[in-house]
Each structure stands twice: as structure tokens, then as C-alpha cells.
């Protein structure tokens, strides 16, 4: 009896090539709806009329600059791979990774600053808007940690020279998610800036 070997490498590669990008895009759609739900919740809560404004920490503005720069660096890395320039690609992806980590640090500094100014995430002295501010930014960082893991995988694979001009699918998946996270942060930053802060 002949059976179809789905473990066959070329079959697996073909399926991967056909489906990886749509999978990440539809995954992104569901994340959009997740944050859409949370930011809609902010708008509905504002309707109650008891919403107090709070000052956005400067560290969050710095975060915005960092994440834009990280996207530029990542893009530079992808172009370098396509041109076969591994040294610059390694440098660019490593820079992206460092900038990603710096983004997390700047978010943490933002939370510390909020806390020092008496704006708490939870408890008796917290308000609905302060809780939203911590929660939404925190959940974005959680998603970004996924992006950082994918960046590490990409970096390791570049070190091992697994990518080349024809094979950049893994990087494209990772960069799509990373750019999305950047775009998402910019949306959240301005949304929070003009609703809560």
C-alpha cells in the first residue's frame, strides 16, 4: 500500500511557503480585535463622565522613538540578507533586538514614573483610567516579548547562515509581526495620549 509521506521535506516546505504569511496576518487580525476591545472599553468607560485625565510619562514618548528606530533597523537587516551581506544583517538584527529590549526598559521606567506620581495600577487609590493605562501598555509589552523571541530565533539562524536571498520567509514573518507591534504601539500611544492622558 502506498501512503503519502506528509513528513516529506519538500511537501512541508511547500505548505510552509503557501501558508506562513496568511497565518501571521490572520493572527495579527485577532490581536487587532483584542486591543480594539480594550480601547473600546476605554471609550465606553469615558462615557460614564467620571474619567479623570492623567499625565503620560515622558518615557512612553521615548518608547515611541525606540520602536520606530527598531523597525527601521530590522528592515535594513532584511535588505542586507537579500543582498547577501551577512555582517550588516547580523548587526542590524542585533540592533533591533537591543532596541526591543530598550523599549521594554523604557516602558518599565514609564510605569515607575507613574507609580512615583501616585498613579497606581490597582488598589484603593487606583482609578479606572490608571488601571487601563497600565494594563493596555503591559499587554502590549507581553506581545512584544513574543516578537523578541522571534528576533532571537532569526538572529541565531542568521549566525548559522540559514537564510539567503531566496530564503527569507522566516525573517519576513518576524518582521511583519515586529512592524505590526510598532504600528500597534503608535496607535496605543496616541489613543492613550488623547483619551486617558
Amino acid at each position, binding site marked *: 500500500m502506498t501512503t503519502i509521506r506528509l513528513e516529506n521535506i519538500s511537501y512541508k516546505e511547500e505548505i510552509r511557503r503557501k501558508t506562513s504569511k496568511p497565518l501571521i496576518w490572520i493572527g495579527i487580525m485577532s490581536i487587532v480585535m483584542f486591543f480594539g476591545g480594550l480601547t473600546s472599553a476605554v471609550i465606553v468607560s469615558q462615557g460614564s463622565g467620571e474619567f479623570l485625565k492623567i499625565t503620560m510619562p515622558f518615557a512612553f514618548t521615548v518608547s515611541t522613538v525606540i520602536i520606530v528606530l527598531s523597525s527601521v533597523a530590522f528592515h535594513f537587516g532584511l535588505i542586507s540578507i537579500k543582498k547577501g551581506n551577512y555582517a550588516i544583517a547580523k548587526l542590524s538584527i542585533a540592533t533591533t533586538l537591543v532596541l526591543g529590549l530598550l523599549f521594554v526598559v523604557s516602558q518599565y521606567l514609564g510605569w515607575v514614573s507613574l507609580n512615583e506620581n501616585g498613579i497606581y495600577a490597582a488598589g484603593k487609590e487606583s482609578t479606572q483610567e490608571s488601571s487601563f493605562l497600565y*494594563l493596555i501598555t503591559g499587554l502590549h509589552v507581553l506581545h512584544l516579548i513574543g516578537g523578541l523571541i522571534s528576533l532571537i530565533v532569526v538572529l541565531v539562524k542568521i549566525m548559522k547562515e540559514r537564510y539567503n536571498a531566496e530564503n527569507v520567509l522566516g525573517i519576513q514573518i518576524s518582521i511583519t509581526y515586529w512592524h505590526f507591534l510598532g504600528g500597534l504601539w503608535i496607535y496605543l500611544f496616541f489613543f492613550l495620549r488623547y483619551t486617558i492622558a
Partner: protein
Amino acid sequence: MSTHHHAKDFLFTYVFSQDHKMISKQFLVTGFLMGFLGLAMSTMFRLQLGWPGESFEVIDMFLGSWAEGGVITPDKYLALVTMHGTIMVFFLLTAGLSGTFSNLLIPLQIGARDMASGFLNMLSYWFFFVSSVIMLISLFVEGGSASAGWTIYPPLSALPQAIPGSGAGMTLWLVSMAVFIVSSLLGSLNYIVTIFNLRTKGMTFTRLPLTIWAFLLTAIIGVLSFPVLLAAALLLIFDRSFGTSFYLSDIYIGGQVLEHSGGSPILFEHLFWFLGHPEVYIVLLPALGITSEIVSTMTRKPIFGYRAMIGSMMAIAFLSFVVWGHHMFLTGMNPFLGSVFTFTTLLIAVPSAVKVFNYLTTLWKGNIIFTPATLFSVGLVSTFISGGVTGLILGNSALDINVHDTYYVVGHFHIVMGLSAIFGMFAGVYHWFPKIFGRMMNNKLGILHFWTTIICAYGVFFPMHFLGFAGVPRRYYENSAFPLFDDMVDINTFISMFAIVAFFAQLIFFFNFVYSAFRGPRAPMNPWRSNSLEWTAPVEHFHGNWYGEIPHVHRWPYDYSKLNAEGEYVYGEDFIPQTTPLGEDEKDGGEH
């Protein structure tokens, strides 16, 4: 081969399988087991409602401390109602129905060897399994399972000290649902990508069976709505465990003011129903797709209005996102906003009516073969109509006020959503059983199952409308404190009697299912003489679906009883498989 190899083969073939057909079976069996528990719970609380305060040995035996002396306690009654709703809506009719048939049919009907990602597919099932286990564990924790209703409105769900079920049971409910949502998202991602990217040559979108269109739209609704429920659940978890006040404000318990301020439980309702209403269609659309397929095959007629069917499903999917407010007419909503939600809600009647019209016109003058699958499909058309018309009253804000939170609502949604979906699921199991297990089910037992089920189902849910009109509120443990409802006691007893018979009727199905899976007659390759691609695959299961090349598709799947100019069947048979190339003068039905 060594024992080690046998064990490994067993593990990867039956447990951690990445084959969509095995995963489909896993969803089916787990979904049915959960569904059976949900059914048993409802039968037990129906005993309480039908004969309030009476002691039943069977309740004592199964519920133990939840029903000292054979009488369910009021708090555990609420727990049973909550768990029944949760299990039926999510575990049976969402994961059980979609998980089974999307997994079985998507690759087989579009002509793919498997899903886009077998690994994600496997994860999807195991997340579902874990969430089922967590939900079941919640029955055994201190205080009992969640008791705030399947909609888990705060503050009952947000304050662990509110009622007995608000403690560990509620926490486990939330954890279970979070895991469930991950499972649903992984499944939906796979379904969408597989349909878009892995169709065989010739399988254009206008040649897709309506089942596939239904599964696609269901998955899209799932991907867009479940994340919002996840957001709602997260805010609830934070309110419960970390002292935030998203849904809570100025609450006093035992004379003590709690620390929460500024939140609103209405916010939860908005977020919950943004998922909650699309969820109705996550449950319904697969059943409607299954019915389309069965009605056409068993009437030996092309489906009437193929494109209108697709268009109406798209319209239903879109509209399902803009009607959530009709669940909240009595929350102090601005009457103008209420009228907007009334308008969008009533609009759904249009595509729904198109579907019903098309089912009836397909059945009209058809050469109907009355298999259990056909009967359950026709049963679905019946419940979709009778449950749909009562929806017109509930969807209208001015009328809804009179029957809101009464048994009218319970009767309505059980008929239109519960019965329609479970009838679709039964129809699907009877129809594709030969594909799932390679054996046939017993027809006579199936027909007996159908007639007892539909008679009992109407016996249970139809009278509830009268209870609702009389103002009997839902979710009450008993109504003896309200003399106003004294005349209603007999109706409740009547309903409960039908519920008990309905429970035993399902045992006929379970017997037929288990017996046929092992001892039923061997199925031929295409027992229903059907056109769609799954019937071209060999009866025996193996990973990859077809030996050699995947068949190509040349026509839509509804070429039944096609006649030539001389009035004879075009290819000598009353069905033409999708793999048959179009003749010179033939047109593809899906294109026109």
C-alpha cells in the same frame, strides 16, 4: 516491531495525532462527552423545576452534597444552570460542532492532504481538552462551580465573596475559558488559511461546497470576536484578583463598603455581547452549512440559490457584529441607540429568510430520501423558523421589555440556537459517519432518535413561551413565593416530563453511535451517491487523504438529477461528482 515502536505509533496516531481526521474524531468524542454532561445537568435541574422541593434518589446519587436528601440546593441549582449553559454553548456547540466538522471536511472537501498546520491543529484540540478538564474540575472545588450564569455578569463574577460559586469555581471558569479561546483561535486560524491557500486545482470559490463557506465564515467570526471576550475576561480577572475597578463601583457587602470605585458592570456586558452575539452564528453557521449539503444530496436536487446562500451567510456574519445591544435593552440604554440596534437586529431576518426560502425550494418536489440526516436537516429548518420568528419580538426594544429575562427568552434561544445547532450536528454525524468511522449507522434507530427528540424538544421549549408571556423569570430556583405564578406549576411539570424523555432519547443515539463505530456494516466509498470531493477519498484512513495525486475539480458540487435535451441523466446517473469534467455544452452551476 518493538513494543516501544508500537507505543510510539499509538501515541502519534491516536493521541498526539496531526491528522485532521483523527483530530476531528477527538473533537467529536470530547464534545459529545461534555454535551452529555450538560444534558444530564439540565435533566436534573428540570426535576427541581417540575417538582419543586421533592426528593429524587437519582439526584442524591449523582449530585451528593449538592443535593442533600435528593433535593438540589438553591445555590447549586444556579451552578448547574451556569455549567449547563457554558458546556452546551462553548464545549458542545462551538468546539464540538466546528472542531469536528471543520477538521473533517475542510481538507477533504477542498482537496488538501491536511490542514495548513497539523501542529497548530493538534494544539487546538489539546487546548480544548485541557479547558474541558479545568471546567470539570471546577465542579469539585470548595463553593462549587461558577454560578453567575453562562454570561458571568459582574458583580457576581467579579467578587469572590459574592455567592458560593464566585470563588475558586469562578476563577477556574475564567482560566478554562481563556484556554478555550486560545484553542478556538488556533483552530480558526488554520481553517481560514487552509481554505484560502490549499484548495486543489479547479476548486474555485464558486465551486466550494456550502459547508466550506459556512466553516470559513464561522472561523472569521471566531477570529474577530473571541479576542474581545478574552479582553473582557482579562479585565474581570484583574477586578477579581488584583484590585482594579473596571466593572465594580460602590459595592457594599455585609454593610462593608468595598474599595472598588468608578467601574461599571455594563462595560462587561458590552464586551461580552460583542462576542456573545456573533457566538450565536459561530454555533449556527456550521449547522446551516451542513444542512445545505444534506438537503441537496438527499433531495437529489441542486441547492436552490447557491450564490444567495453564500451572500446571506456573509450578510449574517457581518450583521452579527452590529447587534449586540439587543441583549442590553434594559440597561438604561439611550432609546435612540436601542432603535438602531432594533433595526440592525431585524435586518438579520432578511438573509435568514433567504436561507429558509432556499431550503424549502430545494426540498420542494425533491426526490427526498428520508435518512436520519435528512430528518435532522428538515428539523433544523423547522426550528430555525420557529425560533427565528420569536426573535423578531426579542429584537424589538419596545416588545423585548415585556418578556426580557423571562422564560420567553429561554424558549427562543434554545429553539433557534440550541436545537438548530444540535440538529445540524446530529445531521452531520449521521451523514458523515461512514467517512469518520468507515461504517454505517443504524437507520431505524436514527429515525426513532429524530422523532423522539423533535417531539420532546418542542414539548420542552414551546410552552416556555407561555411561561414567559406570563412573566415567569428565568434562572429562579422556584416560584412558590409568587402566587402570581401558581397557575404555571403544571406547565413546568409538563416541560420536565418531556425533558426526561428527551434525555433517554439521546441514549438511543449514543448506543447507535458507539455500536455502529465498532460493529456497524462496512461503508461503501460513496454511500449517499454524493458529488463532493470527500467521497472520492478511500474509506480507510491514512494521513494524506488520497493515494497519488489529489483529484482535480471541474464543476460545483450540486449537479444532481441533471438532464440532457432528451430528458435523460447527463452521465447516466442522478449525480455528477465534482471530478467529472464539464461536457461541451455544460455550464458550471456555481458560475450562474
